[in-house]
């Protein structure tokens, strides 16, 4: 579903990604781990066609980037720590706007379905600026799944949420994964991603330095694996 070969990203003289290789199969839930500044957000922004790669090949859902960016964007749903929503529009108006931008079929019933999925159906007529951070993040997920994308990218979606909001977000994430969507999520919360993801990749020094499936996490827990990966002991 996602195939990346020899990806390089430079900002001026600074090289962020140094020949990164990355593959994700359909229905996989990959947690992308790594220290601050490792390039996780940059990598997700390239996959989302928000940033151009300096070098390398990228294929998402059968389309190549950056040449077929519009086709890739049709297959993608993106959630970041920013909600990407308009505070002066209601929840329903936000979804209607993005539904029109994605040319979503049967928009009215679909908006109802999505609001139901994220537990905001009773607040559909309320302005988004009156929502708590957790509610905004749930609506952000609703915005991202509205056009039924095949691939979902989550960039630290738990940032700034309290425990209850995180648990509710996890429930929505599990539901998204259970519907067979391919998910790539960056996070610093190892315990949380250990429960959600089916594979764990560590991005360090501009490459994927280690990767492990959940089924292989027998002797090591996620924290030990992560520390070893950063130390260069599990490449």
């Amino acid at each position, binding site marked *: 579903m996602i195939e990346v070969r020899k990806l390089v990203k430079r900002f001026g003289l600074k090289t962020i990604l140094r020949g990164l290789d990355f593959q994700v199969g359909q229905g996989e839930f990959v947690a992308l781990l790594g220290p601050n500044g490792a390039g996780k957000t940059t990598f997700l922004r390239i996959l*989302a066609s928000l940033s151009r790669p300096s070098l390398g090949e990228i294929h998402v859902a059968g389309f190549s980037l950056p040449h077929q960016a519009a086709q890739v964007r049709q297959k993608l749903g993106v959630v970041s720590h920013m909600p990407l929503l*308009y505070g002066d*529009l209601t929840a329903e108006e936000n979804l209607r706007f993005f539904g029109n931008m*994605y040319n979503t079929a049967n928009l009215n019933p679909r908006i109802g379905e999505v609001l139901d999925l994220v537990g905001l159906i009773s607040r559909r007529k309320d302005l988004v600026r009156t929502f708590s951070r957790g509610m905004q993040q749930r609506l952000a997920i609703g915005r991202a799944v509205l056009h039924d994308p095949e691939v979902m990218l989550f960039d630290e979606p738990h940032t700034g949420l309290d425990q209850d909001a995180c648990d509710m977000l996890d429930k929505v994430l599990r539901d998204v994964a259970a519907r067979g969507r391919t998910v790539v999520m960056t996070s610093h919360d190892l315990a949380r991603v250990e429960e959600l993801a089916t594979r764990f990749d560590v991005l360090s020094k501009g490459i994927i330095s280690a990767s492990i499936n959940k089924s292989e996490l027998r002797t090591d827990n996620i924290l030990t694996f992560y520390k070893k990966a950063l130390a260069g002991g599990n490449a």
Partner: protein
Amino acid sequence: MPEKKLPAARSGNFIKAVFAIAWKDLSAELRSRELISAMLVFALLVILIFNFALKLDAKTRITATSGILWVTFTFAGTLGLNRSMAVEKDRGCLDGLLLAPVDRSSIYFGKMISNLVFMFIIEAIVLPLYSVLYNVNLFNPGLLLVILLGSVGYIAIGTLLAAMAVQTRTRDVMLPILLFPVVIPVVVAAVEASGGFLQGMVASELMYWINLLLVYDVIFIAIAFMVFDYVVEE
């Protein structure tokens, strides 16, 4: 045949996206009234300051009017352009727009339409007020045509440059610095044509300036259409 439907479907999506963005901006502004109120207060203050600062007799009032009007529209317009793009950037909404599977120039045209509507609203309020304060009749079809053409040119390039400026840390300062030098031909042509109409000249005598406005409108829109994608991409 599917091959023939594709361009039509694409242009249908393009138009749908343009109007979705314009509708979104207008709906949000209808609720918050942040942008219009800031532009309007600023425009009224400029007019009042000129009214008190310049002691104009009846004849010089006519000749000064076009200059005062365009200074007012230009400065108030800059406030609106800055705010219109800042709203997108501050909550990450620009990324939300860029993630949509539409031609990115539709974002430009959507923003341009909404900015133009805000500008026209300000002009519709400022013109009668100016007429009353300065005792000058501004309800001249020629003048209204010039205001229309000048506003289109100003907003066309202003929307593009606001999208550039909003990516910088000093966006509030950056927009006027980028915009004013580029927009000088539009402002000069608009001031000359407006002044001509106010002094009783006929359209045929002012065709040079009107044509210049038309040409700049077309050039600015065409440039923005071609480069907007590169301006908003990292």
